[in-house]
């Protein structure tokens, strides 16, 4: 099996890094190139499988690591490939999915036809499966040659194994490790409305829309719209975008965007010392991300709230485990032994723990395992929330004072950082990060509330861009009103959808204005971005060369 996988990898990987184009050799050389293919994210992979085969399919296994660029994995996706080891991981996952799809309890629902015999090849039924399922998996119709090849392979496997469904499982497994599935290609074609110019083809547009708004593969209606050319017309595009924006699947897109923007992939390697932070259980760790995503979905989609109020809203959702971490009561009247349930929770007025920055998904994610870090929190806030760059520390920096939380001379993080940043090499950057991060010092490394550190009272007075404030509640209000906040999320939304930064043109300024005019309605922003001409714009060869 491994040998077969590696042979496959060797045959397809060289194609992945080059600009994809469906242009034939006789077409004129385009003045633009197709944008780089984007490797699909683990979240996209899982959601696609759910949408194609249903939620009963378990997607089990580790994925190849992603790479963050310009603040988003979605941007880094254009530069990542699949390594040999990564292909093995994908292959394991794919075989597991394929086995579930064709197993006895699911095949009736998931295989669109019944073979003449379950123990022999059946080309007609295999063709039906390949044609219908392949269209959803590859996000485009398969060519006749692709169909014929896969039907032949399915038949050979079925004959060898005396099992029709094993044959289907084999080709489905192959499809799920094919570059057409693992990478979202963006193919270009001549634009008939603008002779001499090129555009993304309909299926690439459909795939980009679905990835952006639903974090998934296009559904049948979207693929049909791609086939009919509907997505190339303004009205047709609007119809589809409005349909998608009003679909419950929008929640998946919003979740995916914020999980990326807030850096939740880093939870995979996050650990806390259980002796210091016993309330930070495995269960709580898994739930902290979900708490924030539920808060976001509730505020932005259900309540259609102002994006800025995400940072001050007292509304959230908790489980009993998370409530214990935060030391708040949460009553669950279900029977003993029931799994943790999400329960709406509202903090009292003026409680310092309002807003998503006070949640463990932020304060715990940006803290080392044994202590809090105003520096990391401040850096994350600048970079992830305000789109501001913080330079990395010099290579020879000494962290001993900061890391020694038992030094009786420096009981609090403020005292340790003050001592540390007396070095001129450190002082510059710490001025950027620490004043903000110190306002969150009432949260320990696990996200639990505290008033003292090592017996000393914690001082949470802080400052951002000359505005002085106190504590997490003060920070939330200052961040909410910071002009950089909305500009940042607007640019990140575009970059998430396109895989590149937005141009600074009039159309972009109009999008920013509409966002402000809508009182920062987030689904509205996604809709505007999806409908903009920039969303499907092609980079010129000159821009690409740069």
């Amino acid at each position, binding site marked *: 099996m491994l040998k077969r996988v590696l042979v496959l990898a060797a045959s397809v990987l060289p194609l992945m890094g080059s600009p994809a184009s469906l242009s034939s050799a006789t077409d004129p050389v385009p003045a633009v190139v197709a944008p780089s293919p984007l490797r699909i994210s683990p979240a996209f992979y899982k959601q696609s499988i759910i949408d194609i085969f249903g939620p009963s399919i378990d997607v089990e296994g580790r994925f190849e690591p992603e790479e963050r660029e310009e603040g988003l994995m979605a941007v880094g996706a254009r530069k990542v490939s699949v390594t040999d080891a990564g292909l093995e991981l994908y292959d394991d996952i794919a075989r597991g999915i394929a086995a579930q799809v064709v197993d006895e309890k699911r095949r009736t629902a998931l295989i669109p036809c019944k073979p003449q015999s379950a123990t022999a090849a059946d080309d007609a039924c295999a063709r039906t499966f390949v044609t219908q399922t392949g269209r959803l998996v590859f996000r485009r119709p398969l060519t006749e040659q692709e169909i014929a090849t896969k039907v032949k392979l399915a038949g050979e496997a079925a004959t060898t194994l005396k099992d029709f469904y094993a044959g289907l499982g084999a080709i489905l497994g192959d499809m799920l490790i094919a570059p057409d599935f693992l990478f979202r290609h963006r193919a270009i074609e001549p634009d008939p409305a603008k002779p001499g110019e090129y555009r993304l083809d309909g299926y690439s547009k459909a795939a980009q829309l679905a990835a952006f708004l639903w974090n998934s593969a296009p559904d049948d209606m979207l693929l049909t719209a791609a086939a009919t050319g509907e997505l190339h017309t303004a009205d047709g595009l609007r119809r589809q975008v409005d349909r998608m924006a009003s679909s419950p699947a929008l929640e998946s897109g919003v979740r995916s965007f914020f999980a990326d923007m807030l850096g939740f992939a880093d939870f995979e390697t996050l650990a*806390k010392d*259980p*002796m210091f*932070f*016993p*309330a*930070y*259980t*495995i269960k709580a760790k898994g739930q902290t991300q979900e708490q924030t995503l539920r808060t976001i979905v509730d505020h932005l989609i259900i309540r259609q709230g102002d994006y800025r109020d995400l940072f001050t809203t007292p509304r959230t959702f908790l489980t*009993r*485990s998370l*409530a*214990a971490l935060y*030391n*708040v*009561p*949460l*009553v*669950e*009247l279900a*029977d*003993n*032994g029931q799994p943790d349930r999400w*329960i*709406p*929770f*509202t*903090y*009292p007025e*003026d*409680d*310092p723990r309002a807003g998503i920055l006070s949640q463990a998904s932020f304060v715990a994610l940006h803290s080392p395992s044994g202590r809090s870090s105003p520096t990391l929190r401040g850096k994350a806030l600048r970079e992830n929330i305000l789109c501001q760059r913080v330079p990395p520390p010099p290579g020879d920096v000494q962290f001993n004072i900061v890391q020694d939380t038992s030094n009786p001379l420096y009981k609090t993080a403020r005292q340790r950082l003050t001592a540390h940043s007396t070095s001129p090499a450190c002082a510059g950057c710490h001025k950027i990060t620490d004043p903000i991060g110190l306002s969150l010092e009432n949260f320990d490394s696990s996200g639990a*509330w505290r*008033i003292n550190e090592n017996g000393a009272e914690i001082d949470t007075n802080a400052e951002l861009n000359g505005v002085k404030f106190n504590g997490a509640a003060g920070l939330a209000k200052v961040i909410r009103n910071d002009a950089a906040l909305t500009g940042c999320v607007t640019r990140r939304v575009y970059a998430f959808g396109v895989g590149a930064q937005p141009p600074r043109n009039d159309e972009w300024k109009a999008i920013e204005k509409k966002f402000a005019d809508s009182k920062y309605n987030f689904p509205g922003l996604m809709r505007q971005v999806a409908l903009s001409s920039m969303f499907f714009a092609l980079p010129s060869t000159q821009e690409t060369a740069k």
Partner: protein
Amino acid sequence: MVVRKRVNRSVAPLAAAVALFLAANPAKAETQGYVISWFATATYNLDFKGNCPEDRNGGQIAYRLRTLKQLGYADDVAKAIVQDEEHPLAKEANLKAETRAVVNGKPASIYNYPEAVPDPNLELSSGKYAYGFDLDGKTNPNDFEDPDTGLKVDNQLWRAVGCTESFTATPPDKPYYEDLTWNLMVDSAPGWSLRISGEDLSKDGPVKIVLDRITQHLDRNAAGGILHNMTYVIDPSPRSHNEFNGEIKDGVLWVKKGGNLYLEGEMPYHHEIALENTHMRITRQENQEIAGYWSGYLNWKNWVYMYTARPVNGEDTIGIYYALKKSADADPDPKTGQNRMISATWRMEAVPAYLADISGKIVATPASASQPLQKLADSSGE
């Protein structure tokens, strides 16, 4: 805040033994909530040689060897069987051992008919110290001395089991098999709650202690202990509802002559906790947890039943049965004169918790729930 550290195991006078029950966050008319995070027979065995000079009981291996020899197995065969569970004679030997009671001339289960087996005559504890209280108000030769308070103690359960290997422990170490079985059940069996109410728990004065069963099992923390500050719902059944009047004195919470206590439990550890003439002594620990001792008279046969019912106990069950029977010190049967109750002490530990009644109303909060957290009592849900 002064807290209770591990106590010097020599005699500790009352005044120096314990610490303030609560000194932080003084609050008026408050109710603090806890769930019992560990519960077991109170042990104190720092000086095993002093407690058990003959040291003749041994543990599971010694007990099995004795039994097999009594059944007629040769020395070397008995050793081979004990050392090798797959020994060809092991199955037969175990069956013989467990059915060596003789009833109507036929072999019968020793667990069902313990008195149909001769008394192995285990060594009883003859040491000076045991945790507990003066339950009968009398001085007699069987009294122990409490290592924390220096007061005399009625604890005949300790006399009965103090020389057996399962109970060779001293807090914070836990008796192995009771610890094992507690941990087997704690992740699934509903727990017990404890509420302490008073006008000002930071000061000495009268308090009310309420014990109940809760509807949920306890949740563990990342280190394997019991999670602090979790919210639990109190079982509304009156069956396990207990109220006691107590007093905080010199920082220690005391309940004296508290009447009867009953908490329904789960097999196979404690199917019930039932005490008469309940006494309690509880102190607060450095980490906001509380720990202490509950004492009173319990039905010794019920204790043996619980002991036997555990999946493992590692001891001579019949020996334990007879040791308790001989040591029982209260409630004589009017016909036989055999005492049916035995003075006993449990050790309890509890962690802070939010407690709600069945309507969802929060009725107790952890001591650590300081401002602004206290305002949250009415803010859950929507």
